[in-house]
């Protein structure tokens, strides 16, 4: 499967990836120049934590080999595609129970801030049919896509 690989030592915390993710998943049309960064409906699927020593830790969905989120989903909304390896989320099926948030051992998932009815989950930008937008926007090549074996 293809995975967004992370070299945390190269990350300088610019958050281009975070803004790119917000732009990629915004509900309204528009360019990054009119993206409202304060609108709680524009949420990023990735986030970066800053450490006390000044280093950065990018937290991105791993589309895990054995995804704990899928193994907690009671509605069938979260599934892992056996071919692509992508763990996808169908918000129409979701029962908003948030057991997936509880079960993701890496603390990647969250409930949407505006309505608390859906999960904010990386979709690998599959609709764009190209490299994930976060990867395209990283100036340091701290994140890159690589084929990995399961």
């Amino acid at each position: 499967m293809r995975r967004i690989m992370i070299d945390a030592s190269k990350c300088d915390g610019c958050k281009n990836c975070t803004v790119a993710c917000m732009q990629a998943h915004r509900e309204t049309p528009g360019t990054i120049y009119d993206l409202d960064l304060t609108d709680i409906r524009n949420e990023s699927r990735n986030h970066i934590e800053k450490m006390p020593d000044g280093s950065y830790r990018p937290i991105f969905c791993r589309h895990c080999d054995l995804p704990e989120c899928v193994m907690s989903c009671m509605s069938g909304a979260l599934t892992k595609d056996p071919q692509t390896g992508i763990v996808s989320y169908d918000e129409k099926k979701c029962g908003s129970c948030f057991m997936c948030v509880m079960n993701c051992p890496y603390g990647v998932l969250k409930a949407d801030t505006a309505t608390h009815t859906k999960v904010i989950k990386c979709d690998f930008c599959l609709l764009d049919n190209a490299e994930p937008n976060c990867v395209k926007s990283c100036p340091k090549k701290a994140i890159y896509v690589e084929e990995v074996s399961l």
Partner: protein
Amino acid sequence: MKHVIIGVGAAGITAAKTLREKDPSCSITMISTDTHVHSRCMLHRYLSHERNEDTLSFVEPDFFETNRITWIKGAPVRTIDVEQKLVCLENGSSQPFDQLLIATGANSFIPPVGQFREANNVFGLRNLSDAQAIRPLSDQADKILIVGSGLVGMDAAYAFLEQGKDVTVVEMADRILPIQLNETAGQAYKDLFEAHGCRFLLGKKASETHMNDQGAIDFVSLDDGTRIDCDLVIVAAGVRPALECAQDTPIDIDRFIKVSDTMETSCPNIYAAGDVAGLSGIWPNAMKQGQTAALNMCGIHTVYEDRYAMKNTMNFYGLVTLSLGRGVAEEGDLVLEEEDAHNYRRAILRNGKLDSILLQGKIDYSGIYQYLIKNQIDLSGRETDIFHLSFADFYGVKDNGGYQYQV
């Protein structure tokens, strides 16, 4: 290899999926009393008319065809012939098996209070068949009494309040959701439900009932003499394992079907998973047990390890709560609490390790806490940071890009 699975809940379906994945050529038969695959955690959404039989399903509509599974539905199992390796159905037919999984789940427990067990308007809420029987009555009912304020009771209360019904909840404990929440966190939900018209009677027990000549209970008396008029009663007083098919067989039962750490029962080649095995009543655990059983059924030796079960999330009226652990502090524990307009948080640390945590409001990125509790990670020196920890504090990346904890 012929596999038979009894039950199409979380454990049974996960097992079937796993069997097909690991053994493309095996034969799989599933037998269930259920006529629809459905998520029991969403039955209240059926009562509130937000979902129907199809949208309660947690599998694709073509699940059985795609996975080449023969599904015998609406067919209760009478017994299991362990010697002959046969599942004998109530309808007189039988199914031979090489490997069997019993994943029959549990049924509502209706306590012998007054005429609860005889009346025709008293229901548990466990199976779609319960919800299907309740809905025509609840659509007509004005006054609905719910006995028990656990997750099932509150789910039912939500559904009926959405329908504009007069809802009363009776609870023995002095607070609602007493197993999952403490006083403060429970009060937040109580306020929300009351704002939507719910009436709570706490610290009280149903003790007497009055049945009319149509066989329906029209009022219930509590232990303090309070009389509650009702058209419909939902009893949410817990569940009992659905053991019927294993009774009077050589399969070892002690309240539940006893299983080894490979999910095998006392009889070789017969496995049990989910509520019937009594290890945990939580959906994710049922899935893992079903998966573990299935791997062993295909000859891949696998031990059920992820046993942590003191976990829950809930979401009523947009207020979300995560609750891990018993939430009961012992002498010498460090108890931390935080509160603001939208959030309440409480953690119990014992000997530098996390014992319990409750997050109400924002639960973003909180998946790490189950890991910290389950693996009893030493948090000495950073106990007071507990609400601010993230995976970044334990950050490790494997060669294949997967994360791993560095502790």
